[in-house]
């Protein structure tokens, strides 16, 4: 027999000013099953909570309904108070008579009627509640970080320094990501590889980090605390433990003309057996089988093998599949750059001296193809005039990139500054739409590029670039002066925008996380849960979420790490008990529920008799994966599945209580 207590909160005059709280309490007392109903000035105050606890105790209540503010405000407060009196917290329900009654209606009579209705609904609901226990899920205290760029490395190091084992998976032969390709970094101009390589080495040598480079995620299953991952470790054709990284092999490789270096963004060549760059971590070469003569010409060429002292080259090595069990995952898969060829008017790919921002980084870099001397790709001459064009592949809805890539204003200012430092007497022009320099020291940095380094900023777009007498003629508009301008430049640098990593949608589908229309991963909440994905146990970091600069990427890596360390600080993970459950007696095993479940929380379970014969196959809900959305309930033809806290019986009772 239900024994329900009812409290009607005044919330000062917030509710009592518009709702006749006395009458609501009087009406509530008449509802079958209600043993006491009182009104109270402030239920959330200490005395209010005491009154709540005392009534549970004194009247031996089986359920409580509060007519008060939105359940999103104080539901938890009262559920916790109920636990202290030994009442299952899910037997506390709130009728929202403030946000959805007193604050939005003016007619006191009608507002009171509505408040009574909402209260009746909740009384009928709470009467039909079943005790719900929160579910506890065991945790495998080991993390997987996908992506060895700066944010992934930061996340891995923070987790590892917290005493937790980490598996770091990187697709490329070396970790370092995009940051290791950069020359100097804005706004402090510290050299990227000087600050990046120590981190890479630290991650490589950390006792808690297991590094898989040249490896890709193959499959993910399971749920928070209990993910099973398969990693494909692609064959490097090198016995890694024997390799000393001496370089004899790549110096012996005959293929040194035809393959463009990815690391130098096609500005130089590499061999078929190669390390992407001299500071690669790990410093172990890889054979690119798509170009290696050994594989293409039936094993004839083995010059690298002959040159190798420790004989660690093995042409027959195969991909390995490594299985690991982890409790949490960080997706830090990074970004790609917009395809410049989409902008035909700039002549990228047509004119050799029109380069992308990242290519210019390589031309500036001391480890780059020109050893830090700025040279034109066409003839190797040092340019004296460079035109920089901003927003190439950013803020351009026509090209499908309406968003701002965030870093281009700053790296263009940096490029112009470094150009002025390296080529004295040179001149740079920057075409921009707006200058976005919003972080610490950024605005000052751009100002100093203009004022100290003489870069001329022109607000407007470039309409056409063509070649004439060894010069690139840049035609554009200066919208501030209203003039058309024509600049004869030696080089043009496009401030290429940022797009999601190719295949990020596939990765998101594999992980079961959501992504936006561009392909950037979506946060669980854009403001309050920026490090979490929509799926429990999977966290986000770096540019995979959207354009951001190095400090922000580092912060996001640390944020993901701290979330994981927080998760792992408990022995078990607690899940709210409002999840689906299956009536295995009536389940007919049609598995429509499985089809609609967005979380793969429903699996097949065999029901056996005593001698082990399978009687039937029924649905089983994995409580670690289920979020209690209830989509399965409506898919079930035999009404064998229900969501605790929102059961059919309860909803129908709520509707019935509103009968007129």
């Amino acid at each position, binding site marked *: 027999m239900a024994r329900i207590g009812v409290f009607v909160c005044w919330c000062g005059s917030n509710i009592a000013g518009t709702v006749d709280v006395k009458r609501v309490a009087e009406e509530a007392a008449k509802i079958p099953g209600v043993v006491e109903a009182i009104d109270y000035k402030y239920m959330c105050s200490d005395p209010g909570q005491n009154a709540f606890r005392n009534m549970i105790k004194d009247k031996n209540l089986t359920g409580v309904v509060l007519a008060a503010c*939105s359940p999103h405000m104080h539901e938890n407060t009262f559920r916790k108070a109920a636990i202290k009196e030994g009442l299952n917290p899910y037997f506390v329900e709130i009728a*929202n008579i403030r946000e959805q009654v007193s604050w939005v*209606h003016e007619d006191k009579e*009608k507002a009171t009627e509505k408040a009574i209705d909402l209260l009746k609904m909740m009384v009928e609901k709470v009467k039909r509640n079943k005790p719900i226990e929160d579910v506890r899920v065991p945790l495998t205290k080991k993390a997987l970080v996908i992506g060895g760029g700066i944010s992934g490395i930061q996340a891995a190091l923070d987790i590892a320094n917290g005493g937790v084992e980490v598996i770091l998976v990187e697709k490329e032969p070396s970790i370092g990501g995009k940051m290791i390709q950069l020359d100097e970094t804005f706004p402090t101009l510290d050299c990227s590889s000087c600050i990046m390589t120590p981190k890479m080495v630290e991650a490589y040598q950390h006792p808690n980090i297991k590094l898989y480079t040249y490896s890709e995620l193959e499959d993910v299953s399971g749920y928070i605390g209990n993910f099973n991952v398969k990693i494909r470790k692609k064959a490097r054709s090198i016995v890694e433990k024997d390799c000393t990284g001496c370089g004899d092999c790549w110096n012996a490789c005959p293929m040194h003309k035809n393959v463009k270096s990815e690391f130098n963004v096609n500005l130089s060549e590499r061999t078929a057996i190669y390390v992407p760059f001299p500071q690669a971590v790990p410093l172990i070469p890889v054979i690119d089988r798509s170009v290696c003569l050994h594989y293409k010409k039936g094993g004839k060429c083995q010059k690298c093998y002959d040159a190798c002292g420790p004989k660690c080259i093995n042409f027959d090595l195969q991909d390995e599949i490594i299985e690991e069990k982890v409790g949490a995952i960080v997706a830090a898969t990074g970004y790609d750059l917009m395809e410049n060829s989409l902008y035909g008017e700039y002549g990228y790919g047509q004119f050799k001296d029109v380069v992308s921002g990242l290519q210019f980084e390589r031309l500036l870099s001391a480890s780059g193809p020109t050893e830090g001397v700025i040279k034109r790709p066409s003839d190797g001459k040092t340019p004296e005039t460079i035109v920089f064009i901003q927003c190439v592949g950013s803020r351009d809805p026509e090209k499908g990139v309406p968003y701002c890539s965030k870093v281009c204003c700053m790296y263009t200012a940096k490029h112009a500054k470094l150009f002025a430092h390296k080529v004295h007497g040179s001149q740079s022009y920057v075409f921009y739409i707006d200058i976005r320099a919003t972080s610490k020291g950024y605005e000052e940095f751009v100002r100093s590029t203009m004022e100290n380094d003489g870069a001329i900023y022109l607000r407007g777009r470039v309409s056409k670039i063509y070649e004439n007498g060894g010069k690139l003629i840049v035609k554009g508009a200066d919208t501030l002066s209203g003039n058309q301008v024509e600049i004869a430049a030696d080089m043009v640098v496009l401030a290429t925008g940022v797009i999601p990593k190719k295949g990020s949608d596939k990765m998101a589908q594999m992980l079961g996380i959501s992504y936006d229309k561009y392909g950037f991963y979506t946060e669980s909440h854009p403001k309050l849960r920026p490090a979490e994905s929509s799926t429990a146990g999977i966290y986000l970091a770096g540019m995979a979420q959207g354009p951001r600069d190095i400090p922000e990427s580092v912060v996001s890596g640390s944020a993901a790490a701290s979330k994981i360390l927080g998760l792992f600080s408990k022995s078990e993970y607690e899940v709210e008990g409002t999840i689906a459950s299956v009536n295995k007696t009536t389940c007919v095993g049609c598995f429509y529920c499985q089809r*609609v479940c967005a979380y793969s929380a429903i699996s097949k379970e065999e029901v056996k008799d005593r001698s082990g014969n399978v009687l039937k196959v029924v649905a089983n809900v994995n409580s670690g994966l289920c979020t209690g959305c209830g989509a399965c309930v409506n898919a079930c033809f035999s009404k064998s599945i229900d969501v605790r806290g929102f059961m059919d019986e309860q*909803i129908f009772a709520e509707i019935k209580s509103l*009968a007129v």
Partner: protein
Amino acid sequence: MENNNTEKNQNFSDNSNKGITAQNKEPRIIAFVCNWCTYNGADLAGTSRMKYADNVRVIKLPCTGRIDPLFVVEAFKKGAKGVLVSGCHPGDCHYTSGNYHSRRKYTAFRDLLSYLGVDISRVEFSWISASEGNKWVSVINDFTNKIKSLPNNSDIFSKK
């Protein structure tokens, strides 16, 4: 005991009679809303002190994907003159795809409703996010006015 309860029930109805007499003019609307977007949108209308028609009674569910079409039928059977279903915008569902399930179900459900004799314009389907308090207000007001303007509010199962 059973008698007692019935008596109590009747008392209860009698006491709220004032509201019910106005009922003929004031149709009851039941809104099935999701916990994450629309319920918060309605809360926002409250915290912003916006005013709207008081005909609506909100039933909160985890997700629009939880809404069984039979809830809607039951609502009409119990005297509701209009039913609103509202959840997160496409792509915003807290549970990834519940709102799509709901939308698909609604499309199929319209025929059943017609078969039952109910004018399908009595069911409104909308997306209202947690930041759209103003949209909640306009949806409720517009829908209430629409229901009030429909004929046969006394017997909605009698569409001809």
